[in-house]
């Protein structure tokens, strides 16, 4: 009986998922306009930046998982105009540095060259650059760790744990 009720409840809830009613989505629509914060070129650069921060290995990197768009969306919707400006100028600045140092744009630079540029910015004494990079790195980690791929295949998120045990051994390895 209990299980049947639960399954029935779930089925109804799934049905409700099909589309958010207007009063629920109404909160978001105005805040999330279609146009992005960055130009198409800047967006490509940002995707390469997040992919450099968390690259593809035997599992997908942040670029492939769409974390570039997540970073842009978060800065656009949840941050103030100063942070938004710093994202745009920070991304352009990285491209300029790449052209200056390696004679090619950031998206065409080698993996080592890209890492070198980002690692120099992370250690930079320039507060603006450092602030920009720390924002992008933190959002990249957040977007990556909360992506469907990582939560499903790596950290094994449980939507419905159905239990709480107050004292269990720490799993080794």
């Amino acid at each position, binding site marked *: 009986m209990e299980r049947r009720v639960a399954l029935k409840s779930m089925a109804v809830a799934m049905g409700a998922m099909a589309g958010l009613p207007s009063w*629920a989505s109404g909160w978001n629509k105005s805040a999330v306009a279609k146009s992005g914060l960055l130009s198409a070129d800047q967006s490509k650069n940002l995707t390469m930046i997040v992919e450099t921060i968390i690259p593809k290995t035997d599992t997908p990197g942040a670029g492939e998982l769409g974390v570039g768009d997540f970073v842009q969306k978060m800065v656009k919707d949840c941050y103030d105009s100063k942070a938004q400006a710093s994202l745009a100028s920070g991304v352009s600045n990285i491209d300029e540095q790449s052209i200056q140092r390696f004679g090619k744009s950031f998206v065409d630079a080698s993996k080592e060259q890209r890492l070198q540029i980002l690692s120099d910015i992370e250690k930079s004494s320039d507060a603006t650059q450092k602030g920009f990079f720390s924002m992008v790195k933190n959002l990249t980690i957040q977007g990556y760790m*909360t992506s469907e791929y990582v939560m499903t295949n790596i950290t094994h998120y449980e939507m*419905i744990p159905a239990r*709480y045990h107050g004292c269990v051994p720490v799993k080794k390895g």
Partner: protein
Amino acid sequence: MANFNIDSKKARTYDAIVIGSGISGGWSAKELTEKGLKTLVLERGRDVQHIKDYPTTNMMPWEFEHRERLPKEIADANPIAARCYNFKESSMHFFAKDNEHPYIQEKPFDWLRGYQVGGKSLLWARQTQRWSKYDFEGPARDQFAVEWPIGYDDLAPWYSHVEKFAGITGNKDGIDALPDGEFLPPHDLNCVEKYFKEQVSKQYKDRHIIIGRAAHITEPQQIHLDQGRAKCQHRVMCERGCPFGGYFSSNASTIPWAAKTGNMTLRPHSVVHSIIYDDKTQKASGVRVIDANTKEMIEFYANIIFLNAAALNSNLVLLNSVSSRFPNGLGNDNGLLGKYVAFHNYRATVSGEYEGFLDSTTDGRRPNSGYIPRFRNVYKQETDFLRGYAAGFGANRNTYNDRNGLGESLKAGLHETKYGNWSVGSHMMGETIPKESNYVMLDKNEKDPFGMPKLRISVDYDDNDEKMIKDYMEQVSEMFTKAGFTNVRTNDNHRNPGNDIHEMGGVRMGKDPKTSLLNKWNQLHHCKNVFVTDGACMTSTATQNPSLTYMALSARAADYAVKQMKAKNL
């Protein structure tokens, strides 16, 4: 035409009207309809049907485009709601928006409201402790406010009544100052919480650490299955609405139960303007409603009226119910309506770490936490402040990922979960003293978008609260230190009154009509067919989370009202 009017009036006439569909209104509706009364339930907001109207309930974390963070435009437009811990991307549709429901803050007050069927029962913290006799005896013993007209023994059977139906998990701890209830099996305390419990009982005679008592079904009984509710699945996403009905809400429980009797008419989008007083019968004859969509005024009639609009809105409705007999608001002969408002003081927290149990952790999630029942001034006055505080207590094993570096080394760090120390934390829940100077009143000029007078709120902390904060910080720090916790830190978050969402009073119960508004049955002294059984009725606040007491008071008053009606006394 005359006949048409008579028919129309008949169609708008019920045995009872319940104003509000939240925790207490849901209970009033359930009890009245079960006892056979044709009952109209008025709700100012939209309908929210169980499961069907929980749009976010099954969304995965990655399906929230801002991962539950609030978009800036929404946070900026709703600074009051956004200060609530539960106002998130997944739950914000269950909160009233600041700009649509304005009020006047004479002093900073965060008035958090859930304007929909179910009210705040979708959003509550679900902690459900009984009051003890020491809580009811407080105002008389310490000579503040007025004496409660009821005691623990009056309410105990009604606590049992509502606990069995709602489903309350808890442990029978046998603590004098926090009576046991009708409990479903308790949640686990974790290793560090159990350790702290042992340490505290060794070091202190009258202090206890227990698992919280909460409105979660840990082992469904037939009465829960009959409601279509199942066992709590430990998702801990309660504020989205629970598809299992694992926790108690009006939406999952009392409202559908009342509907099933065939005696309930639920009318959403109905903003109650006032209660109609009939000079001839010297009773209330019905209510005036502003239809939220059309702004049209409609009257409904009934023998009995239950006012469950939530504490401050119940004050507002009574203050706005003026007549030649009651020019200052219904039942307000003594001028005390809207006064002696109080709340709970949640300002202080204490945190720390524990370096033991490093080979242990927890598994799964728990919609509950540990609890420290009040230990100050329980049996006699022993500090330089009145009353006392309860506290939440919880421990968690810290986990983290190495976020250093870039590229493959960073990725490897993120894929490995590392274990830190246990973190421990506590927050206070202090009783505040109701005072005449803490009040709500109607603004004489300004109206809200529905044409109702705006409520002016003037509520503040006082010196007693400051002393209590200091004592809580000292005592819990000492308990932590004695248990060997390190990095013990205290914090005063300076939150506004109201942010606790435990505002109470303004229509207090009492023995004497000269100093109170309601009698021991929650009836207005001067208008006996109007019952107020939400937070507005509270004479004092104690330290317990209040909802369980509102449920019990509502069921008790409904039982009395129906008996009186059948005896032709109402």
